[in-house]
């Protein structure tokens, strides 16, 4: 009997779609295929596909089919289908091997994953081996990122699929994280950048991200196959891949068949969607016949039913958001935002009010606030990308709300906050432009008397403000992470097609909830996928997500474990509070941790920022007595033009930023130009003259408010120390000889011997040696030593070449070699090595690239356990060696030797040995020469440190004398790099605050004792440089120094703190809580940026700088104010003392009146005193009575001189010639001023 035909079904359950193929076992051809978007209903959609298959192949029974499933959502289907699970990368690999055997690499972008497979030929066997990599925990560079951003751009799908890539007009988009990308996209759109340019920029960023991270530093081999939805449907993305991959090949000298066109080299196959499903089938072909036997539809149907009924329960699920229906009612009463009823007016009424406008990231809001502070009207609109258009629209809406009632409106002031505030200040002469945080604070304080904590959750940002005495004491902002913001809930609701207005009711219906791990929004989404697979319903998922929101806010973003210490009055505001599920979860979380907490929802929670701006406008206008605002009608009629073209491009550097000009013209004739879209301050001006003024301004700032971080960064790599001359060969020196005695014991003895010099040839050779050193990591603190070492050995100063400071361009250019993803300071090292290889070496060849493995760094802290480098920082030189030698030896090709020996700065004698071992033969030096050079190196290092301390002391003395503040930066040495600190410090410098580095704080014990005397007296520490009182596990040098600096700042009233850390910094992590405790106890103004990374989140930094500037300003005012009050106190005490002394005199007089005996005594003694005064005493041998005689005839009587002080101290009674000094062997008189000093 002939065997029946057999079919194999391949099912690929991805994060957004389900795909199935039916393959004929005999000829391996796909005879049926389909795909569906599952909208989170993976099981149901799979069921539909199987129904379709069964209908199509109705003449066959289930036993004729075998099923192989793959994809992130496939595992739960294994059991009901009887299928075998095949991991998706393996499935794709098999499909490619079968369909395109000549392919060298595969790039597949899925919904949540991105995969790269490189088929490496094994040189020994000739076989191809698939080297696979996929994103394992991050959605950057995946289809999900593209999807999210496409929504923001607002381009219809059909237009996107027609879009062609244009590399000529690209803008900065950070694709490192989907959330960052989204923020950049929003900003580009708001700047008026055309949608197609935004999409191309996004595509380019995603391609670059994948090429630099996902390839793990490997070069893609040709031909390249592009798979997955985005690669299939987006031609502009395919074109980007083609451009960038070929560029990388050319850059790395990779040999590919240049005769083939890019389309032939980088292919998009027709059936790209079905590769994984088909590959699963290919896998199955190798399996025994019984494996993957299809069970038929019934089991699957049962499984679908179980899911639908929600009967699948997990034992470890969490509680419901609400326990019963009564509770829902209570929530609505307690946390619902009351409906706003605009104020009613009668025709003819005249309304005087101010306008507050909050131009937010996703929406803009405006309010009318009466002179009495009441909210009269509100307006809201989703931002359309142009702040002027949004403003006009909002103002018109506000106006109509009053004028439609027949009343007239007089706007007496205008204030703005949010992203749009700058442009509005410029264009309509707003009275107020305040940062969002301060606006939110003002609004909350306006409505609630007692406020301790304000928690504002907006669409993109989280702001938490801690209050003290009605003012911002401290604040936290979400930095670059979307975890915990409103968009998270919005996105989840969208996934289930639940309108956001119904989120709460849906979530309240859940009887249990899955326990999400809080943190990154992308991880949360992957949790969501898992929970769905486990059978949780949408109600439960929405409830679970609402409950994770407060954890993200308080634990992930705010990082406050002891909430009760913050106070008990909490105000929740921001648009997210309209969602009662979020408000309820927040309130539950707070109340569980803060006894007797009062949680209020702001009555105008969506407009809190706008209200704050309006309240501040009322204050400013009242104080100033007039408004600068151009007027309501003028503002509504404001003409404007937005331009982003060649004429607006900045030409002041190679960046050539495409700027956007917004030109406005009011009916009054008031014109303004607002410029955006530049990456540095140069972009703010349009002419060279204006630029000159800008440069002058900066120069002045440098002198007036020195930035010692910048100075330190520059000085560290300069040749400022001239080494002493090397001793001559034969010069006698003291040394120690190490030898074994007869018993084999090591012994040492002092010897005197001749200094050994190297040969003249070696000396001449050294003059030609060129050494490249990357300007990275701990070289920021040790470079002076290395430079002086080499210079002392006779290598010319100009031959010691450091790479440039980090810049975005440098990073982009050289960032495709690394196979790992560490912190940015380590990751950027590859770009510096690239720079040395491809730039420095090209100009003039290098002999060595020296990147020492610095295991221990020098430290000033005393009594510490050790002084180690961070292991990543220490190990990066090894990683770089691997990265630049694994495919080809980039150093060897250029005859450069790469040197990465270990050095230990805590053991000077051992360091000498390490340096000689490394450089002895290479430089042809003797050990004596190396040791001498090391001593010179240490001298240079000490000069470097002492100079900075001297300048630091000057700053500290100045601020102390003037009751000003200096900003001490707590950072690791490499954050001195302007490319790493994103030049945030310059912004504070521009505001008038000098910047101190840790190195620049004087370390002189006697000077420091002033600040640490209490700790020393209590025996908490043994020296002012000891930190064992706060951190005994103090081995990590750079972290330890940061903690010491925090301690110093906590004790010095004129020092405020800016704490910088890189994203992923493992060594700073343990110090976060500690520094927080130190700073909090002392109430020192403090701002932390703990997530510095490759991209500069300009918007977020701006808010932080502005908010902190507000805090600094208030603090400086308080110092001045305090000094004023202290002076008043001294004056008043002196006056009081005078008054009391007068009173005492009066009391004595009274006493005399009543005590006759005493009165007599005083009388007698007063008479005696009077007699003394009246006595005609001889002065200069004469009495007054003698003056009546003829003095000329009188013989001299005495030589006694008058003991009378000069009447005027400025008139020196000593003849000038009597005070002299020796000058050029001549006696010269001293100047009067000097004489005065001496007196």
């Amino acid at each position, binding site marked *: 009997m002939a065997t029946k035909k057999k079919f194999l079904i391949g099912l690929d359950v991805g994060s957004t779609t389900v795909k199935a193929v039916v393959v004929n076992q005999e000829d391996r051809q796909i005879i049926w295929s389909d795909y569906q978007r599952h909208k989170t209903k993976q099981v149901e959609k799979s069921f539909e596909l199987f129904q379709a298959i069964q209908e199509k192949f109705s003449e066959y029974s289930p036993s004729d089919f075998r099923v192989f499933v793959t994809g992130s959502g496939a595992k739960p289907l294994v059991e009901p289908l009887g299928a075998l699970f095949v991991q998706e990368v393996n499935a794709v690999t098999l499909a490619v091997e079968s369909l395109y055997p000549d392919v060298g690499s595969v790039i597949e972008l899925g919904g949540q994953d991105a995969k790269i497979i490189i088929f490496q030929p*094994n040189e020994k066997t000739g076989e191809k081996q698939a080297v696979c990599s*996929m994103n394992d925990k991050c959605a950057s560079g995946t289809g999900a990122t593209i999807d999210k951003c496409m929504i923001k751009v607002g381009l219809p799908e059909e237009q996107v699929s027609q879009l062609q890539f244009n590399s000529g007009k690209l803008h900065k988009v950070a694709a490192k994280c989907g959330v960052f990308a989204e923020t950049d996209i929003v900003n580009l759109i708001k700047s008026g950048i055309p949608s197609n340019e935004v999409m191309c920029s996004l595509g380019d960023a995603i391609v670059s991200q994948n090429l630099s991270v996902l390839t793990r530093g490997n070069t893609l081999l040709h031909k390249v196959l592009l798979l997955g939805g985005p690669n299939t449907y987006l031609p502009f993305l395919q074109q980007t891949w083609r451009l960038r991959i070929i560029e990388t090949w050319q850059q790395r000298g990779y040999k590919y068949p240049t005769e083939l066109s890019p389309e032939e080299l980088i292919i998009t196959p027709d059936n790209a969607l079905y590769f994984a499903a088909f590959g699963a089938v290919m896998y199955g072909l190798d399996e025994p016949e019984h494996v993957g036997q299809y069970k038929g539809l019934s089991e699957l149907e049962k499984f679908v039913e179980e899911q639908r009924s929600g009967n699948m329960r997990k034992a470890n699920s969490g509680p419901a958001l609400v326990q019963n229906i009564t509770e829902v009612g209570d929530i609505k009463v307690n946390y619902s935002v009351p409906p706003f009823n605009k104020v009613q007016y009668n025709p003819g009424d005249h309304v005087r009010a101010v306008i507050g406008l909050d131009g937010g990231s996703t929406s803009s809001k405006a309010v009318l606030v009466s002179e009495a502070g009441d909210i009269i009207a509100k307006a809201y609109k989703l931002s359309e990308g142009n702040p002027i258009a949004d403003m006009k629209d909002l103002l018109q809406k506000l106006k109509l709300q009053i004028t439609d009632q027949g009343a007239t409106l007089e706007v007496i002031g205008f204030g703005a906050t949010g992203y749009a505030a700058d442009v509005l200040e410029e264009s309509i002469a707003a009275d107020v432009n305040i940062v969002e945080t301060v606006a939110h604070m003002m609004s909350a304080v306006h409505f609630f008397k007692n406020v301790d904590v304000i928690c504002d959750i907006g669409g993109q940002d989280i702001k938490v403000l801690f209050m003290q005495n009605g003012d911002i004491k401290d604040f936290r902002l979400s930095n670059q992470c979307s975890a915990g913001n409103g968009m998270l809930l919005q996105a989840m609701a969208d996934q289930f097609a639940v309108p956001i207005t119904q989120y709460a009711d849906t979530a309240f219906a859940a009887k249990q909830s899955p326990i999400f791990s809080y943190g990154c929004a992308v991880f949360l989404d992957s949790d969501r996928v898992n929970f769905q697979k486990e059978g949780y319903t949408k109600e439960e998922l929405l409830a679970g997500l609402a409950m994770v929101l407060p954890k993200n806010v308080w634990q992930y973003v705010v990082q406050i474990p002891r909430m009760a210490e913050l106070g008990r009055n909490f105000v929740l505001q921001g648009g997210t509070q309209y969602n009662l599920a979020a408000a309820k979860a927040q309130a539950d979380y707070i109340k569980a941790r803060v006894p007797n907490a009062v949680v209020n929802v702001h009555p105008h929670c969506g407009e809190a920022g706008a209200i704050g701006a309006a309240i501040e406008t009322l204050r400013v206008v009242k104080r100033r007595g007039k408004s600068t605002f151009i007027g309501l009608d003028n503002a509504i009629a404001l003409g404007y033009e937005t331009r982003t073209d060649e004429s607006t491009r900045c030409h002041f550097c190679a960046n050539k930023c495409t700027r956007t000009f917004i030109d406005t013209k009011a009916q009054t004739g008031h014109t303004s130009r607002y410029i955006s879209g530049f990456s540095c301050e140069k972009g703010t001006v349009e002419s060279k003259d204006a630029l000159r003024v800008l440069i002058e301004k900066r120069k002045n700032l440098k002198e007036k408010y020195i930035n010692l971080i910048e100075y330190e960064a520059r000085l560290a790599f300069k040749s400022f120390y001239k080494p002493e001359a090397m001793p001559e060969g034969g010069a006698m020196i003291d040394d120690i000889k190490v030898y074994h005695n007869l018993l084999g014991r090591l012994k040492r003895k002092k010897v005197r011997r001749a200094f050994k010099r190297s040969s003249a040839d070696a000396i001449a050779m050294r003059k030609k040696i060129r050494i490249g050193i990357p300007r990275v990591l701990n070289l920021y603190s040790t470079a002076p030593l290395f430079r002086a070492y080499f210079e002392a050995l006779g290598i010319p100063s100009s031959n010691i070449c450091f790479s440039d400071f980090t810049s975005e361009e440098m990073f982009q250019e050289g960032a495709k070699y690394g*196979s790992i993803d560490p912190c940015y300071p380590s990751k950027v090292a590859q770009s510096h090595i690239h720079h040395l290889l491809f730039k420095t070496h090209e100009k003039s060849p290098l002999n060595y690239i020296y990147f020492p493995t610095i295991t221990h760094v020098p430290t000033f802290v005393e009594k510490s356990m050790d002084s180690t480098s961070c292991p990543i920082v220490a190990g990066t030189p*090894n990683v770089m060696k691997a990265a630049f030698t694994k495919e080809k030896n980039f150093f060897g090709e250029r005859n450069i030797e790469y040197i990465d020996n270990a050095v230990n700065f805590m053991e000077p004698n*051992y360091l000498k040995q390490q340096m000689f071992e490394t450089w002895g033969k290479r430089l042809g030096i003797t050990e004596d020469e190396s040791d001498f050079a090391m001593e010179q190196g240490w001298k240079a290092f000490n000069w470097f440190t002492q100079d900075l301390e001297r300048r630091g002391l000057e700053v500290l003395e100045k601020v102390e004398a003037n009751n000003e503040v200096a900003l001490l930066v707590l950072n690791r040495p490499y954050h001195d790099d302007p490319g790493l600190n994103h030049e945030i410090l310059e912004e504070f410098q521009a505001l008038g605050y000098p910047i101190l580095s840790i190195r620049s704080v004087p370390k002189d014990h006697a000077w420091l004792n002033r600040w640490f005397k209490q700790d020393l007296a209590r025996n908490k520490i043994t020296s002012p440089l000891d930190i064992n009182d706060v951190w005994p596990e103090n081995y990590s040098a750079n972290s330890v120094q940061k903690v010491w600096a925090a301690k110093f700042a906590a004790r010095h009233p004129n020092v405020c703190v800016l704490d910088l850390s890189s994203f992923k910094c493992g060594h700073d992590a343990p110090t976060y809580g500690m520094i927080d405790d130190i700073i909090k106890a002392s109430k020192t103004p403090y701002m932390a940026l703990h997530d510095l990374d490759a991209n500069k989140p300009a918007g977020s930094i701006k808010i932080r700088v502005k908010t902190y500037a507000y805090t600094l300003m208030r603090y400086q005012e308080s110092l001045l104010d305090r000094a004023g009050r202290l002076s008043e106190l001294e004056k008043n005490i002196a006056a009081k003392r005078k008054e009391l002394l007068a009173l005492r005199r009066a009391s004595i007089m009274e006493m005399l009146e009543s005590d006759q005996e005493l009165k007599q005594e005083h009388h007698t003694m007063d008479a005696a005193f009077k007699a003394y005064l009246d006595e005609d005493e001889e002065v200069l041998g004469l009495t007054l009575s003698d003056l009546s005689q003829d003095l000329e005839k009188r013989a001299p009587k005495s030589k006694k001189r008058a003991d009378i002080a000069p009447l005027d101290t400025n008139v020196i009674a000593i003849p000038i010639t009597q005070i002299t000094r020796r000058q050029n062997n001549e006696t010269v008189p001293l100047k009067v001023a000097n004489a005065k000093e001496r007196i």
Partner: protein
Amino acid sequence: MNQPVKNYVDIESAISDFEAAERKRLNLQEQPVEQWYDPQPQTFTRAQRATTTILMGGLTIMQDNFIKAALCGIGVNVEVLDCPDTKALHYGKEFGNRGQCNPTYFTVGNLVKYLVQLRDEQGQSTEEIEKNYVFMTAGACGPCRFGTYITEYRKALRDAGFPNFRVLSFQQKEGLNQTNGGEDAALPLNLKFFMCILKGCVLGDICNVMGYRLRPYEIQPGQTDAVLAQVRDILSAALSKNTSLIKAAHQCKKLFKTIKVNRNQAKPKVMIIGEFWAMTTEGAGNYHLQRFLESEGAEVDIQVITAWLLYMLWTTMHDTKRRLKLREDDTGRYGLANMDGQKRIMKLWVGEKILRGIFKSFAFLMGLKHYKLSDMNEIARLAKEYYDLESRGGEGHMEIGKVIQAAEKKKAHMVISVKPFGCMPSSGVSDGVQSLITKKYPDVIFCPVETTGDGEVNFQSRILMFLFKAKRRAKAEFNGAAVAH
């Protein structure tokens, strides 16, 4: 009317009152700032020993059990914490610093979880808990985050409401470090004490290796685990009652022999290396990696704790030898000032021999055959070219050396390097260097994988991606061998 002022005492007193009033009026009533200090509660005296329970944990389940039993045998009250679970992770994240690695979150959270249970479920007051329990853990002096675990424990305990809870650090290289111990120290810091820990580690290692070797091939599912449970009880009893360990080991050997296996199966051998905690924990910390691999048809080759102790000895030996002939000794941490370097080398040499001897003896007694402890010199020799031997933290150069060794000696079909997300030495350095190693040894199937505590699906998917190749290779080898026979 003013009161009469008779003398200066009255004036000064009046001025003082006036100043106080003025300071109040001018808001100048400043208290001196009370700076923050870490209280570092660590006192644990001999008198407290009888009423105090020492909490510990963090090694494998076997080892934790044996150390507990051995310490009980010398009269120390020890309680072992359960293997950390996801709830522990959540506690760790809530009370720990942001940006820590997940072993910190898991282990720190595990202690907080236990104490919260004592307080909230068993009704003990915070004061009672702080008085009756101490926690003991291995300490280090860096250079990775591991060195700051103790800082993290104290922070989390303060924030979780146990500010006076004592955490004692057991310095791996230096013995027990109790700041306030002195002569009144509660713990007997003698050879006996250290031998308890050593025996626990070695016996645990041997049982674990036996288990992972037998389980994948057992004919009767569950038999290996059942035997291991019996073995655990027998050895624990011998340790706690101070009866003959040799006799107990013999009993165990017999039990292991009862496990029937079928070696006639093509199973890929998967070596697990990586960060110490992530590769040794047997719970949520690595998503039950060992059991997952077994469930996917692999045989697991684990790293033993004894090898870690050998690595510790090796590093000290290396550092001492490097500095031995300096003309002047340094005072830095590794410097030999005030120390006899030659004597130290001798001690280390003897220590290593003893450690290997103990392991070998018990391995023989319990029936563990053909198991060779790593040769640290060989690993260093292999790794040296790629990873500086003086770069420390985590496993240091060991990871590199082990992969090269696995490739050259074909020790496993696949090597998994498991580490916590952002592990500084492993993710941040080793993985970067491994990219060169895998190029040099293209035959090696190397799978570096990070754990975050969540994201289990992606973690396992990544492993499956590589395991597929390892399975194919094992199958081909197996078939080849079958044909050859």
